[in-house]
């Protein structure tokens, strides 16, 4: 029995003396301390730390229990505590990454598998209807046609490059679905990015602009993408993001083609484009393949237009080249903001 186990939460930024204990437990369970965890739920039996689970926003990380207490519902207690703690912090909908061999274990804790990179990693969510409801909502926005295109863009911020890609794709397709990445960790807020995309694609026929979701290029589906601004490009989990796209999002909207710009500068985005060809087109899947169309970047005075270049110029306070890189609305936004120094 484990009635004598106390569960409590610790703020991982403040209680680092317990950090060493957590580290030992994780090592014992073949896990690494992951980045981004701001709070841990721990279980203690007397002096001994017997269980832990971390939260990074709505992503559960570093779930571990001591081997000798397994099979006594310790993990179920731990995961119940995690659910309640996460809700206190505003997250009812949780995700977790785990090795595929642990999927059935987390299944017992109310998590359901969304996508699996065989032998490597699985993404799970804590609701049986999350992705299903989302796909059904998307399906209502499906449009008829044989060639249905899609672009997913962070647009941080929206440039002539994005506009060129959208125009080119729209001209080739019966309908084009554009998604703005929703995750709010980029230089520009989602609200601003979305508004600029909206202004930039206005008037282009046969196009739907969608809000992004947690199921595409989010911290859950693609954790590393958002570290790139911080200069960390670790091992990419882009496969999960792409598998989700092919399995749920593309079928819901009948998407046959996905358009991307070639990437001259950003290594994370370049790797994402390469992975895209593999996971959407060639990899084995029950879902139909999606053709990846890589479009060469629009060029302005021999320099490929890219949002990262715009951010670089902005940081250095160089506004002179801006009008040749971004549409009027974006320019107005950048000039009218404290970003311009």
């Amino acid at each position, binding site marked *: 029995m484990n009635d004598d186990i106390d569960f409590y939460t610790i703020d991982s930024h403040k209680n680092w003396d317990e950090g060493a204990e957590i580290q030992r437990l994780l090592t014992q369970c073949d896990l690494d301390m992951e980045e981004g965890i701001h709070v841990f739920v721990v279980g203690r039996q007397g002096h001994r730390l017997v269980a832990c689970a971390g939260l990074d926003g709505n992503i559960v990380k570093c779930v571990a229990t001591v081997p000798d207490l397994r099979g006594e*519902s310790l993990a*179920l*207690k731990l*995961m*119940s505590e995690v*659910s*309640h703690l996460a*809700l206190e912090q505003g997250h*009812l909908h949780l995700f977790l990454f785990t090795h595929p061999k642990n999927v059935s274990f987390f299944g*017992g*804790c*109310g998590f359901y598998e969304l996508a699996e990179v065989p032998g490597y990693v699985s993404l799970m969510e804590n*609701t*049986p*209807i999350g992705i299903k409801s989302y796909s059904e909502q998307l399906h209502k926005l499906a449009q008829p046609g044989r060639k249905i295109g899609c672009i997913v863009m962070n647009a941080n911020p929206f440039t002539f490059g994005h506009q060129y890609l959208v125009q080119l794709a729209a001209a080739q397709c019966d309908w084009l679905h554009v998604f703005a990445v929703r995750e709010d960790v980029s230089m520009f807020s989602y609200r601003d990015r979305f508004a600029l995309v909206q202004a930039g694609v206005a008037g282009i026929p046969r196009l739907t602009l969608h809000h992004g979701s947690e199921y595409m290029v989010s911290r859950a589906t693609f954790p590393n993408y958002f570290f790139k601004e911080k200069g960390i490009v670790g091992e990419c989990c882009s496969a999960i993001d792409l598998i989700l796209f092919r399995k749920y999002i593309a079928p819901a909207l009948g998407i046959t083609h996905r358009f991307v710009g070639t990437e001259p500068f950003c290594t994370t985005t370049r790797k994402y484009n390469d992975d895209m060809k593999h996971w959407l087109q060639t990899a084995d899947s029950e879902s139909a393949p999606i053709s990846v169309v890589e479009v060469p970047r629009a060029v302005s005075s021999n320099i490929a237009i890219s949002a990262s270049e715009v951010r670089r110029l902005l940081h250095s306070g160089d506004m002179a080249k801006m009008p040749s890189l971004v549409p009027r609305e974006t320019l107005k936004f950048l000039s009218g903001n404290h970003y311009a120094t």
Partner: protein
Amino acid sequence: MKIIKEALAGTLESSDLLVKVMPLPEDRVEVVIQSEVMHQFGEQIRQVVSQTLQQLGLVSGQVVIEDKGALDCAIRARVQAAILRGGSIQELDWSKLS
């Protein structure tokens, strides 16, 4: 009554259940039940849940239940707790909880 915010009640432990409720944009009640004893008691669980929701007069919200073989009384109590935490109720009519 409507669900106006996300709420949670219960645990994932054996003989208990975890009930999650969240708002829906329209007046519709959606109930999803997952249970380890679905084959034996699925119908019974569904009845207890829908009766509890009716008594509380729920007209809008999503209710997701992760059942670990709880008894009817536990199911009723957990569902009530989750709905009352997430619901738009101001004055509680205790007779509706019986």
